[in-house]
């Protein structure tokens, strides 16, 4: 066994065509099957060359599985395959502006709140948190519903890629916001301010 080419993409590792829509169960089944063949434990007493190749190929396999099994990381990888990536700027995605403003205001209030007004504020923020999470779930559904459309339009990808990109950007922003709100609720004051994305 020789190592896969260093630039083999995740789909090549699995030997499947490039598609956004994947059957997760089938992907897992194939992952286990390939693991049984490639894993270093299966080549414990083979030659050093074979053992090294087994390790490298299994590493590529686990990496590919980790990326492809989750729709969001798969979609991000899809952007990468098409030479795109999410920007690193911290601008609020326009559809989120009003919600973000509300969250920030509430968190600010909570930081300065007296012990007495805390419980009421906390439950308000918990409500907003529920709203944020619902919004994220909605984005996930929209994204997965569009997978088929994007798969079929590989020939003219530009506008659809932009579509995918904006969903992912909004989602990334939301996830950071949700994490920070949760951290604030848990009393972790050392956490970054809510609008700071990483």
């Amino acid at each position, binding site marked *: 066994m020789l190592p896969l080419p260093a630039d083999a993409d995740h789909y090549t590792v699995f030997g499947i065509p490039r598609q956004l829509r994947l059957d997760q169960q089938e992907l897992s089944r194939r992952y286990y099957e390939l693991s049984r063949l490639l894993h270093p434990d299966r080549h*414990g007493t083979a030659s050093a060359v074979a053992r090294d190749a087994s390790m490298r190929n299994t590493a590529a396999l686990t990496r590919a*599985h*980790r990326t492809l099994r989750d729709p969001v990381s798969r979609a991000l990888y899809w952007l990468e395959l098409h030479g795109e990536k999410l920007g690193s700027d911290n601008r609020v995605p326009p559809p989120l502006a009003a919600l973000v403003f509300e969250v920030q205001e509430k968190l600010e209030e909570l930081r300065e709140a007296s012990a007495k007004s805390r419980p009421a504020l906390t439950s308000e923020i918990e409500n907003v948190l529920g709203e944020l999470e619902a919004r994220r779930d909605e984005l996930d559904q929209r994204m997965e519903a569009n997978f088929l459309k994007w798969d079929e339009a590989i020939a003219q990808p530009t506008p659809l890629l932009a579509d995918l990109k904006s969903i992912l950007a909004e989602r990334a922003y939301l996830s950071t916001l949700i994490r920070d709100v949760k951290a604030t609720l848990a009393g972790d004051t050392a956490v970054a301010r809510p609008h700071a994305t990483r």
Partner: protein
Amino acid sequence: MDRVFGIDLGTTNSLIAYLGDDGPQVVADAASGSPLLPSVASFLPSGEILVGSAAKLRAAEAPLETIASVKRFMGLGMGDVKPEDRGCYPFAADSGPVVRFAIHGREYTPPEISALFLRELKLRAEKALGEEVKRVVITVPAYFNDSQRQATRDAGRLAGLEVLRLVNEPTAASLAYGLDKHHDGLIAVYDLGGGTFDISILRIHDGIFEVIATNGDTRLGGDDMDRALAAQVLQPGEDDPHLVRAALIAAERTKVALTDNEYAALELIAAGAKREHTFTRAEFEQFIRPVVERTLAPCRQALADAGLEAKQIDEVVLVGGATRVPLVRRAVQELFGRTPHTELDPDQVVALGAGVQAGVLSGRRKDMLLLDVVPLSLGIETVGGVMERIIDRNTTIPTAARQLFTTFMDNQTAVDFTVYQGERELVQDNRKLAYFILRGLEPQPAGLPRLEVTFLVDANGILNVTARDLRSGHEHSIDVKPSYGLTDEQVESMLEASFDHAVADVAARLLIEARNEGDGILRATRKALDQATDEERGLIEAAMARLETAMRTTDHNRIRDLVDELNQASMSLAQRIMDHSIKEALEHRRVDEVVS
């Protein structure tokens, strides 16, 4: 085929096991009949070294010549040693990046002392089974970091063993129970040993044991219970090593007695003091409650990482002597809402599992496969001392990640970076693993060189770093300066200065290692030779003949060179056999099955 052995190198006791015809077997000591080798070494002024029970008996009498619980110091530097440990061990004055003990004018590192236990176990198994013990798997706490794993591997090497694999202890324990035979499901393994705590969550699926999350504390265990109890009979500030050691030994005895009894006496006679105190189990539980509670946060974190609720766990397995403590059992039962498995001896279950994994590696068990994870995230330092994660914790191993580096000044000829391990945002709060330097770049304008660095975590959970110049495609050499642990040269020189009188000669040991490697590849190649083309066969047979001739000499360097040569000659054949077996397995599947 040579047998592979499984070793549990424990904080308190060490054991050796193998996969027999009727399942995994531990090897008992011929004299005592016990499979447990106390992980204690005692150094006599005469130069003699006691290992095991004899050393343990000498601990109270000669505390500063006797080393117990050395596993607590594996892979650590002096800066990591906790204040409460300082008084109890004869640390060398000038030890920095690697903990060293100074006894009778000699210095010993934790891997050297661990090697004493490994060698003792090797001899024990060789005597019992009448065959040479060469290749082993050694278990480590799942939460061991990179340097602790490297230190364990060094210990194996110092004992003259080929360490085929490091296996995580809780994962090994799940193998021992053979839980795959019952059904597929989710398992939690709660492992509280003498000095370490681990929790692992696994999914069993058709013989595949897949770890989905692991967490723990490498400095938490039954020893901490002993300390909590000993503190009750010591005055604040009392730090006489004899007295402290005696109090710890007495506390351990009392702890054990309180497992089955409602009350037990603690009798302390040392350094001119004589104290006696009777404790009830309720009192004991009150003292150790903080220790037990410290185990619960990692359990919750592991469940959260796995995306599971405690009640979804199908089976709970207890590992480690400290799980005999009734309070621990109650806490675990309460957390998971089910009665944990305790059928196997918690002191033996890890070794038994290591025996099973040894059988998997030697090809005796083909139905099982273990997919383990990296316990801690790996990352590099970026602007502002922020840790940029490259590999997330709980990623299945082996795994690899790539990172591009370039220069930021014109004509810069070297690029450096530092790798950290841990979960915190800032590198200063994480553990520094190593500093890497890529040298010998062509002088070019800033930003033009494209260097791809691959971070590969192997199946042992150990990091390997390689670099490639993307323009030329050439592998790039890389200098590694580990922050902790021993360099290869240091291990070599330890082998040279080895206090093993049986095989004092390094050359002899290197020769044995080289011959073992030669044996291995000759055997593997012979097996595959009938699938070679005529052209390949000529090349391979010539390389085999040269290697066989060299193996009759004592030139270990030449043997190694010819092993490499044979590897090269058989590369295309090895690849074809592998491709063929993969193809065969996949042929029955249509590609479009995967795509809905």
